[in-house]
Structures are given as C-alpha cells and as structure tokens.
C-alpha cells in the first residue's frame, strides 16, 4: 500500500483531469469533482508528508530499472513539503475558481487544465531525474499557457505572448544545460550527476553549466534581471489563475534552483556570489517596481519578484541557518501569495476595478472582509508574530554570521519597502473615502451573487488566512520542519544514498 505512495499524488491529479474531461458539458459536476478531488489530494499529500517525516527519504525506480539507468522518483522532506503546500493552495484556488471564474471560461476546460497544472507541479517536485524534470516543466508551462489565454481578452493575449516567449526560451536554455550535463557526466539521474560532477576536472565547463541552469530556472523563478515577463503578464488572467501562478509557478523555479544548487553545484563560491548579487538586486528592484504601480494586481506581481529575492538570498549564503530561512520563507510565501491574489480577486469582484486611484472605502462598507484581507497583507510584511517575520530572522542571523552586510541591508530595505507598499494599499483601497466608481454593465458584482457563490469566494481566503496564522503562531513547528529540510539539503549524501539504496 505504501510502496507506491510517491505516485499517489500524481495519479490522483491525472485521474481527476481525465474524469473532468469526461464531464465536459456539466460545469456543476466539474466544480464538485474538482473540490472533492482537491480535498482528497490534501489527505494523500499529508499522508505522504507524515510518512516521509517518520521514515525518511523514499524513492521509487520507475519500471524497476535500477538507478541510475531508469527514472527515479524521490520524495525527501522538501519534496513532500512542497507537494503538501501545493495541495493546500490547490484546494483554496479550486474552491475560489468555482465562483470567480465566469462560466464561459469554465466551459472551455478550465478545471481539467487546472488539475494538469497541479499534476505537473507535483511531478516536478517528486522527480529525481533531470530530463524528467524538463518534461514536468513542459507539462506545467503548456497548462499555464492554456490557463493564461483562456477567455482570449486583448490584454490576456498580449500578456500571453510575452509569458510564452520567455518560458519557452527558459525551456530551451534548460534543455541546452541538460545536453551539456549529459555530455559531461553521461547520466541524467540527479544523484548520479552529483557524484560524477564532483570528480570532473574541467571546472570551467561545470560553472558554465551552472550558469545555464541558473538562467533557465531564474527566468521561471523571476529573479533579477530575468523577471520582466512577470509584471507584463501575471495581472492579465482571472485572479484565480493569477493566484495559482503567483503562489506556485515561480516557486517551482525556486525549488529547481534549490535542488540543483544544493545537490549538483555545491561548494562553488563563484556561483554562490552570483546568486547573492542577483538576490540582492531582485529584492531592491522588485520593491521599487511595486512602489510606482497603481494597478493592485501589478503591485502584487512586483511583490512576488521582491520576495523571491529572500529565498534566493538564503541559497546564496548557503549555511544551514540560511537554507532553513529559505525553506520557511517558501512555506510562508506559497500560502500568502496565493491568498493575496485571491483577496485581489475579491476586491475586483466587489468594486469592478483594480485601479487604486478609483478604489476606496472598502473598510467602511465591508469591515469584516477587510479585516480578513488584512491577514495576508500584513503577513506579507512580516509584522511579528505573523508568518513573514520568522524566516527573515533566520536570514538576517545567517547574514550576520557570514558577515554579508549587503544582504542584511537588502533584506531590511525590502521589508521596509513592503511595509510602505502595504500601508499604501491599505490606505488607498480600504481607508480612503469612497468615490463614485462607474458601474459596469454585465459585470457580476459580489453583492449580486448567491449565498453559496459568495461563500466560495470567502471560504478559501479564510482557510489560507488560518494556515498563515498557524505558520506565524506555530512558528516552532514550521521552524522544526525547515531545519530538518535544511539539514537534509546541506548533507546531500543522504539524498544520494537514498537513491542508490538497494533493497
């Protein structure tokens, strides 16, 4: 029963997509299947996570081909953790989509593609083979292309062209890097690459391969100077789609960076310095970019970029404390960013606009919902004891230990700028006196929705707000998980042994 446990999250999503395709004509049925499937997915992911937590890293050799000849699937604590977080965000977005995506879009296969996207994400987290990772990335991007263009509005298509070009370019660079690494080591298994690359004499070529991976994953993770596609496209699709993109898609890039730079390209000062410089510039440029935007969702898009910097900075410092900070930030960021975009979607549904110049008076009209939306907003800033505070503490401690004053400066600067931005958003959207927003014809305002549709928009935000409150107040548990993941990542021998273990 538990032997194939690693495959269950993948099989469930594949099954869901197929079943959803067969119920193409009935949107009502699709909603029910998607939500129950997502609840089931949380159960399976939690099972996988507790199993890995209790029994350590698990592997499966596909088709019983022994590593390194076959494709290996590896679930260490980091992979299982990310699968669990994906299932939590996935459930929230699935419920949110049921109400916020208009039926015209749902009719063209929104839910099947959504579950294909989750399938791709889970696959990317669980695979232990570099070429297989490329294939999962392709599943992710082709699903995301469909989701970003579904509906075919002008802005969506313009954003999609940019999103498409940059992502396909990243895939090509990734493929080039895989080709070079296969030429160097003659293997595709990540654990095997890690062993063989350490013995190579041509260090210059290894560093160049590292740079190729950094650029390929850097485009996906949106780090400086490779992020310009993100603010040009993330605000164009419906907010449920932005929520899953903002919460999870950039994080796959971060995961791939963490995996390659802790397993394959370790102990390389040159690459780590580059990571550190890129992270510092990401923090500063993302923050400054968000300051000048007036569109609420563009502000959130720039904040995604800014906060990717925190995760990369921990990877650049490369100590156990710093990696623990990175992992904690990853946990916090997935939940909070998903929630933030859903809150943005709720504001759009209430008022009919995302323009901060027009918005206002939300607190006077919807005090309870405003307080609810305050939780993700202020978690993002990291006001203690909310969830964003604790990882920053680890990152600053690690920077002090390393004597990296630039990174302390960048971390604190980005925190301050996030505070200013959130204060600005709060003042402009919630506190400013209400001005008359022109009413839009044929727009489904929040007030006109039925009770159950309203609940479907509010419940996921409540759910993720509770999760982020738990991350903040139960920081002890999350820190324990992060420390264990960091310990496993810093000691990559454990991963290699798990892959090559013979039964």
């Amino acid at each position: 029963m538990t032997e194939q446990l690693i495959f269950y999250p993948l099989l469930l999503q594949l099954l869901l997509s197929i079943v959803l395709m067969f119920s193409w004509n009935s949107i009502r049925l699709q909603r029910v299947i998607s939500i129950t499937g997502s609840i089931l997915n949380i159960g399976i992911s939690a099972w996988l996570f507790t199993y890995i937590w209790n029994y350590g890293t698990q592997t499966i050799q596909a088709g019983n081909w022994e590593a390194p000849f076959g494709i290996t699937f590896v679930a260490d604590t980091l992979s299982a953790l990310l699968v669990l977080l994906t299932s939590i965000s996935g459930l929230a977005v699935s419920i949110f989509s049921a109400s916020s995506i208009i039926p015209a879009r749902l009719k063209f296969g929104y839910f099947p593609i959504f579950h294909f996207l989750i399938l791709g994400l889970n696959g990317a987290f669980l695979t232990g083979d570099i070429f297989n990772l490329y294939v999962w990335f392709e599943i992710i991007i082709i699903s995301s292309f469909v989701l970003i263009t579904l509906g075919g509005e002008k802005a969506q298509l313009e954003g999609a062209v940019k999103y498409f070009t940059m992502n396909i370019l990243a895939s090509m660079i990734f493929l080039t890097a895989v080709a070079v690494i296969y030429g160097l080591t003659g293997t595709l298994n990540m654990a095997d690459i890690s062993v063989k690359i350490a013995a190579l004499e041509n260090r210059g070529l290894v560093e160049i391969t590292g740079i190729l991976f950094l650029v390929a994953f850097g485009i996906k993770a949106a780090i400086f100077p490779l992020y310009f596609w993100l603010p040009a496209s993330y605000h164009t699709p419906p907010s449920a789609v932005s929520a899953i993109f903002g919460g999870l898609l950039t994080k796959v890039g971060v995961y791939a960076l963490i995996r390659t730079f802790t397993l394959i390209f370790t102990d390389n000062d040159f690459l780590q310095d580059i990571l550190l410089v890129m992270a510092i510039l990401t923090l500063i440029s993302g923050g400054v970019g968000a300051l000048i935007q007036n569109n609420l969702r563009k502000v959130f898009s720039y904040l995604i970029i800014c906060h990717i910097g925190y995760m990369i900075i921990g990877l650049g410092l490369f100590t156990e404390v710093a990696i623990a900070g990175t992992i904690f930030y990853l946990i916090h960021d997935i939940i909070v960013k998903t929630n933030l975009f859903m809150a943005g979607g709720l504001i759009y549904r209430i008022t009919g606009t995302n323009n901060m110049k027009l918005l206002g008076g939300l607190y006077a009209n919807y005090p309870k919902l405003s307080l609810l939306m305050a939780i993700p907003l202020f978690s993002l800033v990291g006001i203690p004891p909310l969830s964003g505070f604790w990882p920053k503490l680890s990152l600053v401690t690690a920077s002090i230990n390393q004597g990296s004053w630039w990174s302390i400066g960048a971390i604190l600067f980005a925190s301050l700028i996030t505070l200013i931005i959130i204060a600005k958003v709060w003042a402009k959207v919630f506190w400013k006196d209400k001005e008359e927003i022109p009413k839009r014809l044929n727009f489904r305002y929040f007030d006109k929705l039925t009770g159950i549709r309203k609940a479907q928009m509010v419940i996921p935000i409540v759910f993720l707000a509770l999760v982020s409150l738990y991350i903040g107040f139960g920081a002890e548990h999350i820190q324990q998980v992060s420390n264990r993941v960091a310990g496993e990542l810093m000691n990559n021998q454990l991963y290699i042994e798990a892959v090559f273990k013979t039964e």
Partner: protein
Amino acid sequence: MEIVLAIMIGVLYAAGIYMILRRSMVKLILGIILLGNGANLLIFLLGRITKGSPPLIPTDLYTFSEAYADPLPQALILTAIVISFGLQSFAIVLVKRAYKVVGTDDLDEMNAIDQDS
C-alpha cells in the same frame, strides 16, 4: 563530422536568438523553432556520435564487444521534438489569435497591458 555539427548548432542558436529579438511575431515563432532544433542537435552531438554500430548485442554474445552508439540521446531528442512540436503549434494559434484581436504583428505595439486599469 563533429566540427560541422558544432558550427551548425552555433548558427542555429545565433539565428534563433536573432529572430526572437525581431519585432514581428511570425519571426518570433521561427526563432523558437530554430532554437529548438539547435538544442536537439546539441543533445545529439554531446551524446557522442558513433557511426555504424547500433546498440544491439549479437545473439551469440552477452555483452557488447566494441563501442556502440548511445541510444539515450535519441530517446531524449524524440521526447524534446514531440514537446516542442506541441508548443510550436500552440504558439502559432496564439499568434494568430493575438494578431486578430490586437490587430498588429508588431510586438512593440502590444502595450495595452502597460496602462492602468
């Protein structure tokens, strides 16, 4: 043979990136296709080219007696070709739709998303 392939890969990459940097959307797609072909040839080249010795073990033997062609790069290229075929077909449809809706082939004129709304 290797040197010819290496030059060809270089030319394909350069031409692909040059085409992606042009302003026309059709040239963008051509660039992506060229780049994809370059990457596939690179896998082929880096998998070491061995001529005329397929990875088949003669019936009277149990192991290879001489150098054989690595079959893995070909499997990788096949996968990559199928994937890039899917992505390219999507790209062509997307560009056609974008041309119809936006009414221009010039990437510089696609700036509706930069306005506040």
